[in-house]
């Protein structure tokens, strides 16, 4: 029988910001989404103020000023590095690990029952090591199914059950667990969204316990096999296995909203070229070639009063490539075809698709240059990636990507790359 542990970082983005800046200790901190739009992470102090997740920043600006809330733009480089470190620490405990999101991982821990203090003790050890080594707080939920492990984690986080950030359903008496599930709203169940939650509510199913005790057949008939599986998981029957292997991506997307509306083709060209550059790095990192390029542009659909236009076109390439220059050339060709003057563009994106592993590539039948360019292109791209790896993304780039980048995302209060750039390292005072 499997046992799952869900390890979830508390207030992850906000905690990363606090980790390196002692001035933020005890202060309410929020992290904002792209273009500083909405609150995507809140420190404990902000949660205590009752500020909800996802609220637009402009709506709470006044409140934030009153309470001294410090707002940060999303520092993805920092969060990604800290997230990778968390996964690395977890990998030291077991290799049976599924990285579920940037701040959550499932571990299969059934083999560790002999640990001092049992699985609860094991969870405590995980929590302690991440606190010691990385300065981040996590909660651990332990249960015989992934769905229950998620709930156990919720209990640990909210202090409903368990101690010191660890909640272990496997050591709980059945009646205690039943009673606990009777106090948790059904909407907290993994996979029960707002829509399903409302329908369940209308049927009189308000708590997790009530969902668990529903007739599985009825649930399947009225909802889906997916929710039926959830019901079984709530009863302790494991239906969802650890998804350890992350398959190579079948497509790579790079897109952003612009900080300000973009009208000129030249600006769009720069944006598209830079997205291609970013996507191509990922493409080469997984050692693939792209067989097609899609480009799309659109105006701000949230402002129906302004003229609207959107268009996306996919271009199959004559020969699969991982060369930024080739991909950029095709993407710009597509862009020039779909661009219409007179609109204020709000967003652009590119997608690399029809990906194939480099090893299984096919040469074009009538490729004039044969494979001769191939080794040269590969070496050039290798140099490009290693220089950008060392000196920061975009240090070396195609002229098409532009120099001033007026269209770039607004990130008004970005913290330094504390762990990801030499210039951003946190200084310590010796004076």
């Amino acid at each position, binding site marked *: 029988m499997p046992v799952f542990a869900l390890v979830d970082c508390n207030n992850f983005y906000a905690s990363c910001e606090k980790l390196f800046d002692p001035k933020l200790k005890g202060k309410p901190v929020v992290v904002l989404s792209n273009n500083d739009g909405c609150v995507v992470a809140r420190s404990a102090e902000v949660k205590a103020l009752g500020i909800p997740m996802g609220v637009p920043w402009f709506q709470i600006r006044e409140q934030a000023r009153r309470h001294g809330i410090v707002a940060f733009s999303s520092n993805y480089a920092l969060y990604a590095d800290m997230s990778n470190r968390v996964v690395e620490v977890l990998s030291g405990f077991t290799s049976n690990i599924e990285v579920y999101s940037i701040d959550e991982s499932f571990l299969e821990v059934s083999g560790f029952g002999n640990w001092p203090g049992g699985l609860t003790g094991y969870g405590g050890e995980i929590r302690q090591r991440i606190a010691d*080594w990385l300065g981040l707080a996590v909660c651990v939920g332990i249960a015989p199914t992934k769905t229950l492990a998620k709930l156990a984690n919720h209990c640990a986080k909210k202090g409903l059950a368990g101690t010191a950030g660890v909640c272990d359903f496997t050591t709980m008496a059945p009646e205690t667990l039943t009673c606990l599930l009777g106090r948790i709203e059904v909407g907290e169940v993994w996979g029960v969204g707002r829509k399903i939650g409302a329908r369940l509510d209308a049927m009189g199913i308000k708590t997790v316990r009530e969902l668990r005790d529903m007739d599985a057949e009825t649930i399947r008939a009225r909802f889906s096999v997916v929710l039926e599986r959830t019901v079984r998981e709530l009863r302790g029957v494991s239906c969802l296995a650890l998804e350890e292997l992350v398959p190579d991506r079948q497509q790579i997307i790079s897109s952003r909203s612009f900080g300000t509306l973009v009208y000129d083709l030249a600006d769009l060209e720069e944006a598209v070229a830079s997205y291609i550059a970013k996507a191509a790095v990922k493409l080469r990192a997984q050692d693939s070639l792209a067989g097609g390029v899609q480009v799309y542009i659109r105006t701000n659909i949230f402002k129906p009063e302004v003229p609207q236009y959107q268009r996306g076109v996919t271009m199959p390439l004559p020969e699969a490539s991982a060369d930024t220059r080739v991909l950029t050339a095709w993407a710009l060709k597509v862009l020039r075809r779909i661009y219409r003057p007179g609109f204020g563009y709000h967003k652009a994106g590119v997608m690399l698709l029809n990906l194939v592993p480099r090893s299984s590539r096919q040469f074009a039948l009538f490729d004039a240059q044969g494979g001769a360019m191939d080794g040269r292109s590969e070496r050039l791209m290798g140099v490009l990636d290693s220089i950008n790896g060392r000196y920061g993304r975009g240090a070396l780039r195609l002229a098409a990507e532009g120099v001033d980048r007026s269209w770039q995302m607004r990130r008004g209060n970005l913290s330094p790359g504390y762990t990801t750039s030499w210039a951003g390292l946190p200084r310590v*005072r*010796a004076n």
Partner: protein
Amino acid sequence: MYRQTQTALLPLPDPPKQYLPLDGVKVSAGFPSPAADYEDARLDINEYLVRNPVSTFFFPVQGDSMQGAEIFDGDILVVDRSVRPSHGHIVIAFVNGERLVKRLYRRAGKVALVAEHSAYPPLPIGDGIDLEIWGVVVGKFKRMV
């Protein structure tokens, strides 16, 4: 129209080079290279300075208060959070909203942060001082040119 009636394999004008690691090549005759067993031995400074990469962070130094411990302005400190701080360690400390580097004094129930320069008096940690020992300094490095 293109029409192909015959297939021929021709060498490319600029063939991609294939690099092979030396230790993957079997030498069947002659005197074996005395260096063959010492492949891959080039030194990596990370190996020397960073024992536990996952828990290691870098902090540049500003100021001269630790020069007695050979820590100078502009040095970059290697800080390993997996080392448990104890008496005598040089540590990164968060004190009242500041990031400091000091030597940790912890004896007979007393805690203090001590500089390594006569101009800077020790900082006793008592009530009203908010102290977090962030990590232990395990090394340092600096680029000269």
